[in-house]
């Protein structure tokens, strides 16, 4: 088996609910290379956030597991920093302090106070938020908050940057702006990114690979689509490109024609695999 940078290996998860056990994910399996930009797309409620939370270590998979650089993920950590949809900035800390909170913890004993300050400021500059460093979260717009969330994530120098619908709550223009910023930063730093989205254009524009998830319960990976578009990508030019529209159409057809349902053959195949080599695990 080839060693991949990040492996999501036959992940299944069950939640205890009032009406018994709810199987949210079953046999979710895909691999990510270093520096790759991967989107996970699927209908609302199919289990995208759950996948991301398992990679982050915030949830523990019931079956299977996540392997990052050959090591199994068991708990959350700054090497898999998360950008939350709700931005999750501490409202009592300034923009600067929110980023510094992570930096001070992650680089404790590695950087001097002055180096940390420079590093926080550098990351805020990267997301173009250095001008509002000393503002409080309630004083800045939604898009700016999300930029700070991204800076906080980047400042931890994660091996993988996990983003859960980070642009979902933003208006179209702000969203486009932020998408461009993230693509620029990702190119510059060569970070590995996992982006959750339900926006087809966003997925095609930004990703190297789109993981399409079937509807839950027991959601799995339906299809994986490689996006071979030149970078840097320019949204206006791309919208006229046939290749872009072809990819777009592929994703749309998965989501709406196949209704996010995996074909019968594929379903049968994965079922057989499950019964043969499921690794049971204690839920964390």
């Amino acid at each position, binding site marked *: 088996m080839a060693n991949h940078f990040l492996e999501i290996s036959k992940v299944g998860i069950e939640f205890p609910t009032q009406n018994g056990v709810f199987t949210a994910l079953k046999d979710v399996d895909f691999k990510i290379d270093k520096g790759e930009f991967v989107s996970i797309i699927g209908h609302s409620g199919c289990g995208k956030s759950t996948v991301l939370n398992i990679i982050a270590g915030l949830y523990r998979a019931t079956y299977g597991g996540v392997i990052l650089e050959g090591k199994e993920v068991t708990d*959350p950590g700054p090497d*898999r920093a998360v950008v939350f949809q709700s931005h999750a900035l*501490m409202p009592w800390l300034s923009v600067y302090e929110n980023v510094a*909170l992570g930096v001070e*913890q992650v680089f404790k004993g590695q950087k001097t106070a002055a180096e940390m300050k420079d590093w926080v400021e550098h990351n805020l500059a990267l997301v173009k938020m250095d001008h509002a460093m000393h503002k409080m979260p309630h004083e800045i717009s939604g898009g700016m908050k999300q930029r700070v969330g991204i800076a906080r994530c980047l400042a931890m120098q994660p091996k993988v940057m996990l983003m859960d619908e980070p642009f979902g709550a933003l208006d179209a223009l702000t969203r486009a702006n932020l998408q461009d910023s993230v693509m620029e930063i990702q190119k510059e730093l060569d970070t590995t990114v996992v982006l959750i989205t339900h926006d087809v254009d966003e997925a095609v524009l930004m990703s190297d690979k789109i993981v399409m998830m079937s509807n839950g319960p027991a959601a799995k990976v339906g299809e994986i689509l490689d996006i071979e578009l030149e970078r840097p990508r320019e949204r206006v030019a791309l919208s006229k490109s046939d290749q872009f529209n072809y990819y777009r159409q592929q994703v749309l057809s998965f989501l709406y024609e196949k209704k996010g349902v995996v074909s019968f053959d594929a379903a049968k195949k994965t079922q057989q695999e499950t019964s043969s080599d499921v690794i049971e695990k204690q839920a964390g």
Partner: protein
Amino acid sequence: MTAITNNAQSKSDESNQLLASVGKYLSGIDIKSIVYPMMGIIIFLFIWSVAASRIDTSLGQFPGPAHVLEQSKSLYQEYQAEQDKAAAFYQRQEDRNAKKLAKNPEANVKIRKYTGKETFFAQILTSLKTVLFGFLVASLFAIPLGVVCGLSDAVYKGMNPLIQIFKPVSPLAWLPLITMVVSALYVSDDPWFEKSFLNSAFTVALCCLWPTLINTAVGVANVDKDLLNVSRVIRLPALTHVRKIILPASVPMIFTGLRLSLATGWMVLIAAEMLSQNPGLGKFVWDEFQNGSSNSLARIMVAVLAIGLIGFALDRIILIAQKVVSWDKQAVLR
């Protein structure tokens, strides 16, 4: 209003400026927020005086506003008279000691404290000290305990039956127990605190405990999940997590608890003082009642109003503290 204006004009520019800013502040206030409360008070005074004139008690007519105002003045005069007596006493003592020392520099001079009658204002001060001490002691226990309960489901489940059983108990029921325990355990030749003070304060503390404890626990348990996840991703150590995430996030709920605690503590204190004859406003009320002069009811009414005003002021002080401490400056504070 006019009196203030006249005074200010005769003073320096500075106070004119102050007045201007006060004026600006006042013009910023919705006129209704002044007129309506004023109307409320005037209507209340009217109803009070009419009703009072129709109620005859064995201690004479029920006091109306005018009678109460007169008695509040007389209470203040008694206080001043007592102050003068105290000053005179100390003056005499000093003179005497000075004379003694002049005769014999080695003389053993005694300094005695003046022990006059407890005035109304002395009783207010005692009650304030007691309630603040009890409140402080309770908060020192309730906040950390609330944080632990909010953080740990196991601790919360373990504490919950105790909280539910002890919360509805009137602290007055504790009073005899506390009194006995304090006299048994607090034996010291040179005590920091009077026993009666400790009895009242611990009774207050027992009832201040619950609202703060419960509200803190609820606040801590309901911190936004995403913020907790951020803390987990950053891997903040437990204590830093509490200090930097949990406490700031639950500040609004902690203060809600503190306000409830202090309000009930103040109410209970008056009752405890009445019941146990410990010094304070409650004792003042009880003594006046026993005294049974024609002015007693009016003097009790002065105490009632003072209790209300002080309770209101205490609540405002906590609100101001909350505004200073809390990050949530936009929260509507009532």
